[in-house]
């Protein structure tokens, strides 16, 4: 039988410059099946084929900078073909502006600071993911951190905007905390994965002065 119709499962841009789409093949009808990704762009009749099937692995199409435009809707379909016939996926509409999911922040550091006769506090610092060019202003990232006592259940999440540093005052003396940070483009796109867990032990004399 002809192959089943494939499904486009996800498109993602990691740094608002390139993007990749993945599809899930249907059953191949018992025959060797190959897949062709075709796309057209808003306001244009022309249909193009996927520029690079390899870079992002099997069942994927990678659009490099030259093939990636913003504020324009891509109409993407994937056709499965074998010797009996072919079948085309439902169209997948994508504006790359809305599919940016950055990598997690890096270089997360935690430092306890104790200014004379002032309360001890924790300073967290981090850097944007290396792929993301925030220097040019093309991509602006916002950050959110979460922390919880090691044996605690629920995380406390704090949105910190575009800063890459945060001072924590209200911490429980003697407790060991886990801290993670993730990021998202300002406005549109989705949160990155959380950065790897970092631990910090708060000394017991972290007390409020009378």
């Amino acid at each position, binding site marked *: 039988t002809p192959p089943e119709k494939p499904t486009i499962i996800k498109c993602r841009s990691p740094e608002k410059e390139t993007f990749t789409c993945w599809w899930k093949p249907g059953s191949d009808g018992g025959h060797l099946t190959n897949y062709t990704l075709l796309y057209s762009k808003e306001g244009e009749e022309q249909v193009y084929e996927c520029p690079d099937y390899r870079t992002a692995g099997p069942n994927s199409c990678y659009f490099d900078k030259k093939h990636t435009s913003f504020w*324009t809707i891509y109409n993407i379909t994937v056709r499965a073909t074998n010797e009996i016939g072919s079948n085309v996926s439902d169209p997948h*509409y994508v504006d790359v502006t809305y599919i940016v999911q950055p990598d997690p922040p890096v270089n997360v550091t935690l430092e306890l600071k104790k200014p004379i006769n002032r309360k001890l506090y924790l300073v967290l610092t981090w850097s944007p993911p290396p792929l993301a*060019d925030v*220097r*040019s202003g*093309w991509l602006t990232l916002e950050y959110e951190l979460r922390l919880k006592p090691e044996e605690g259940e629920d995380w406390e999440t704090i949105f910190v905007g575009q800063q890459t540093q945060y001072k924590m005052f209200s911490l429980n003396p003697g407790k060991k905390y886990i801290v993670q940070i993730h990021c998202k483009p300002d*406005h549109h796109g989705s949160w990155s994965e959380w950065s790897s867990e970092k631990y910090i032990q708060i000394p017991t004399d972290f007390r409020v002065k009378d």
Partner: protein
Amino acid sequence: LPICPSGSISCQVSLGELFDRAVKLSHYIHFLSSEIFNEFDERYAQGRGFITKAVNGCHTSSLTTPEDKEQAQQIHYEDLLNLVLAMLRSWNIPLIHLASEVQSIKEAPETILWKAVEIEEQNKRLLEGMEKIVGRVHAGEVGNEIYSPWDGLPSLQLADEDSKLSAFYNLLHCFRRDSHKIDNYLKVLKCRLIHDSNC
């Protein structure tokens, strides 16, 4: 308080401060435009296929705008400034009508009504700021008045509810897109002109 150098004819808001305020305002305007679009989409557009009519239907599509980072970095900053100005001017009239005509939509919630008025006011304010910035950067001459005319008012007043809602959807879809371009271009310009591309 900014201490003005004594004896100077008048003290000025620095170009860096003007850009800071413009970016904060463009960020806020786009935030509002996304909210009003999402609210309208959820309440009036579900399953009605308005998107297909909105595709390639923006009155500003005649303005050639950068579509990726390289184009935004290669275009001369004066041209990009004038482009932002042209886009803001192109939206002045449509936003005035949006703010008034939205009142005629059946059971339009207060949050949509208020945002339409706020967007129109803040867009006018950003236009004032951009004219100030362009005047400062071009040393006086504010460039010829290029902008894209808009003839969409009749479609916002159509008797047929479905067509009218589709016209509103199209306007909100286009403004969400253009306000995001404006916000993005201003952030790039600020990094280029004020922070030497090292934000």
